[in-house]
C-alpha cells in the first residue's frame, strides 16, 4: 500500500543528493513520529489490511467457501454470524480483504501507469500526440463505463486478469484527463519553457519538472480511484458479472446481503464498512502526504 506513495514522494525531493539507506530509514521513522494522529491511524489501518490479506488462511477460522452451519446465524457462536449459504461471515470478510484489496490495488496501479503517463506525454508533446490520445480517451469515455464493461466482459469472459485489464483501461481514461489537465497547467509555466529551451529530453522534463508538480492531485485521485474500483466490481456483480464464486469479495458481499438493510438488519453494512474504513485510512495518509508536499508549515 505505502509503496506507490513512497515512490511518488521520492520524485518530489529528487534534487537533494542520494542519502544512505540507514539514514533514510531513520528519516522516515522520524517523519512518522511527527505525523498527525490521523495519518498514523491511516497507516495502522492499511498495515492491518495488508496483514490480514497476506495471512488470510492463517487468521480465518474456517475455509473460504466452507459451509459451517445454518444460514443467517446471528452473531455469537460464529463471531459475526453466517451468510446466506451458512458460511462464516468473519472468514468471508478476511478472505474478501485479500481478493478485493489485491485486485483493486493492482487495477488502480495499472490505471495510473497507463493513464498518468499518457496524460503527461500528451500535455508535454502537444500537437498530434495530444490530439490522438485525447480522441482515443474521448471515445473510450464517451461509452458508458458500465455498458462498456458489460460488453467487454461478456465477450472476453470474467477471469481475474481480464477483469483487472478491462477495469484498468476504462479507469485509466479518467486518470488521463486529470493528468493531462494538471500537466498542461505546469507545462506552460516559465521554468518548463526554460528547460525546453535548454534542450532537455522529454523524459527529463517529465520526471524533474512535471511529475513533481502534479503528484499531489494525482495522489489525491489515487485515493479515490482505488475506492471506485471496489464500487465498479460491486456494480458489475449487480449485472451478474464480477468475480467467480465462491471467491469472496466485499462488493459482492454487500450485493448478496443488501436486501437485509430494508429491514434494518446491519449485516450488509459489515463489508461496506470494511471498504469505508480502508478508504478513509488511505485518504488520511494521502492527506498527510499532500500536506507534506505542499510545503506548508501549518
Amino acid at each position, binding site marked *: 500500500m505505502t509503496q506507490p506513495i513512497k515512490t511518488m514522494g521520492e520524485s518530489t525531493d529528487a534534487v537533494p543528493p542520494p542519502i544512505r539507506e540507514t539514514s533514510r530509514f531513520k528519516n522516515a521513522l522520524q517523519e512518522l513520529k511527527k505525523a498527525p494522529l490521523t495519518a498514523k491511524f491511516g497507516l495502522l489501518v492499511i498495515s492491518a489490511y495488508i496483514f490480514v490479506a497476506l495471512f488470510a488462511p492463517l487468521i480465518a477460522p474456517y475455509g473460504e*467457501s*466452507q*459451509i459451517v452451519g445454518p*444460514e*443467517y446465524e446471528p452473531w455469537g457462536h460464529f463471531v459475526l454470524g453466517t451468510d*446466506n*449459504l*451458512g458460511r462464516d461471515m468473519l472468514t468471508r470478510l478476511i478472505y474478501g480483504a485479500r481478493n478485493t484489496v489485491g485486485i483493486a490495488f493492482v487495477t488502480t496501479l495499472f490505471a495510473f501507469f497507463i493513464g498518468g503517463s499518457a496524460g503527461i506525454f500528451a500535455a508535454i508533446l502537444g500537437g498530434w500526440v495530444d490530439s490522438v490520445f485525447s480522441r482515443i480517451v474521448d471515445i473510450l469515455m464517451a461509452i458508458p463505463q458500465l455498458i462498456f464493461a*458489460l460488453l467487454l*466482459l*461478456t465477450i472476453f469472459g*470474467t477471469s481475474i486478469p481480464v477483469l483487472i485489464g478491462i477495469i484498468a483501461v476504462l479507469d485509466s481514461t479518467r486518470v488521463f484527463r486529470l493528468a493531462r489537465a494538471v500537466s498542461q497547467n505546469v507545462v506552460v509555466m516559465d521554468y518548463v519553457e526554460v528547460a525546453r529551451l535548454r534542450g532537455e529530453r522529454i523524459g527529463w522534463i517529465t520526471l524533474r519538472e512535471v511529475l513533481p508538480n502534479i503528484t499531489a492531485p494525482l495522489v489525491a485521485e489515487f485515493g479515490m480511484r482505488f475506492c471506485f474500483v471496489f464500487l465498479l466490481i460491486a456494480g458489475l456483480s449487480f*449485472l*451478474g*458479472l464480477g468475480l*467467480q*464464486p*465462491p471467491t469472496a469479495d466485499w462488493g459482492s458481499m454487500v450485493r448478496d*446481503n*443488501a*436486501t*437485509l438493510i*430494508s*429491514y434494518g*438488519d446491519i449485516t450488509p453494512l459489515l463489508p461496506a464498512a470494511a471498504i469505508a474504513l480502508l478508504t478513509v485510512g488511505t485518504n488520511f495518509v494521502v492527506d498527510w502526504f499532500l500536506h507534506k508536499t505542499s510545503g506548508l508549515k501549518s
Partner: protein
Amino acid sequence: MSNLRKLEKLVSAGKMSRREFMGAAIAAGVSVTMAGSIFSSVAEAAPKQGGHFKCGIGAGSTTDSLDPATTLQTYTQMINNGAYNYLTEIDNHNKLIGELATSWEASKDAKTWRFKLRKGVTFHNGKSLDADDVIASINHHRGKDSKSAAKPIVKAVKDIKADGKETVIFELSGGNADFPFLMSDYHLPILPAKDGKINATSGIGSGAYIIEKFDPGVTTHLKRNPDYWKKGRGHFDTIEHLVIADVAARTNALQTGAIHAMDRCDLKTVHLLKRNKKIEVLKVVGAQHYTLPMNATVAPFDNNDVRLALKLAIDREALVETILRGYGAVGNDQPIGSAQPYYAKLPQRKYDPDKARFHLKKAGLGSLKVELAAADAAFSGAVDTAVLYKEHAAKCGIDITVNRVPNDGYWSNTWMKKPWSMSYWGGRATPDWMFSVAFAADAEWNEGFWKHEKFNKLLVEARAELDEAKRAQMYAEMQKIVSDEGSVIIPMFAAYVPALSKKIGHDAAISADRDMDGTKAFERWWMA
C-alpha cells in the same frame, strides 16, 4: 347461530366491516380466532368491484412488445391475460375449463378437434367473436413466416377450418388427447381478425381490461372493460402495472403502499417481510422446477452411472432449505410435480455419498472432475446452488468446478452449449406437454440431448391414448425412466412466492400454473 348466518350475509354483501363483524360475532358467543377466520372465509367469497390496483413485476423489459407471438415474461403474460381471452383456461383450481370455447370434442384417434365458440362475446373495438378470429389468431403462430415462440406448440396443427360462425375444427398430424390444454398457452390469445389477419400489436382483445397506455419496461395502464362477458371476474376499475426489476425496490414499494402486489419475493428476507401485518405472502408450489441438464452425448455424461452418481451427490433437502428457504419441494429428477395430473409417486432419491461412489466405480472412475456453468439468469440462486452442490459433491469424490458465466446471453451462449449448465422450467399443464418440450428425442429444447427409445415410443402412444387408466400407467413408467436414466438433474420444485397487500382479496384457491395466480391476477383479484 342463526344470528351468525345473518352476519355472514352482511359481510359477504360488503355491508359490514371486519371490526363490526368481530364485535357482533363475539357477542354471539364465538371465539375471537374463530370469528376472524369466519370473517376471512366469508369476506373472501365476496369480490367487490372497483378500485385502482397497482402491481409491481420483476421480469419486464423496455424491449417488450404487445405481440403475443413474442410474449416472454410474467409482465407481458399478465397483460395478455388482462386484455385477451383464450379458447381454454386453466382455472384457479388447476382444472381446464372453457373460455372462449364453451365445449370441445375429439375424434377417436384424437386427431380432429371441434371447438364450439361462446356466443355474445365482443372485442374492445366492438367486433363480435366468430370462427375467423380464432383461425387468424392461431395462424399468426403457424407457417414459414411466423416468428412466434409458440410455433412448436401449434406445429402439429395441419389445418384449421370454420364450420359455420361458431365452430372451429383443428386437424392434427398426430393424435393428442391434451390438445385443449395447449390452447390455453399464453402465446395463443384470440384477437379480432380483419381480412383473415390479426393486428398483433394493437392490444385489442376480448379480455376484462382495455389497454390505455403501454410503455414497455415502465408501466401499462388498463381500465375495466364494461362489456366483459365473464361473470364474477375483472373487478378493478383501473390497473397500473409496473416493471420493478430490483427485488428490494419491489419490496419497499409494497411496504410503503406504492404497489398492492408483487411477484418473486426475495427469499433471503421473506421471513422478515412476513412480520409485516399488512402484507400476505403466498406460497404456491406448482410445476416450476430448477434443472441441471447434462449433455448425454458428451463424456463423461454419456455414462448413466456417472449421471446417477451426480444425481446422488446433490443434497436436495439442503438446497430446498438454503436456496429456497423452504419455499419449494425436493425434486426427483423428473419434471412432473406432486400437484400435477398423472404424478407418479416414485421412491425419493436421497443424498448418498456411498452410493454415488459405488456408481462412479461402476463407471470405472475413482474420482471425477467436471465443470458446471452457472448464472443467476438460469434461476435466482443458481450460482449459490452450484456452490453448495460443489460442497456436497466433494464428499462423494466428485470435484465440481463452478464456472460463473455472464447473465447476459446465457440462453444463447451457455444453456445447451456447455456440456453441463443450469436451467429452469415454468412447467407445463400436462405431462405430455412437458415431456414433448424438453425430453422427446426430437424436441428443440431437449436440454439433456437425451434419446431413449422406449420413452419416446411411450410418449407418442400416451399422447393419443384416450383411456385414462392406461394413460396414467404409461406416464408413471415414463417418469421412472426419466428419473433413473434421464440426463437432467432436477433437485427441486420452486414455489411461486408473490406478496400482496391485505387490501387485495382473492379466492382461497390460487392457481399453481404460473406465478401471480396463473398470471391472471388482474381478472381474479379484487380490492377488499
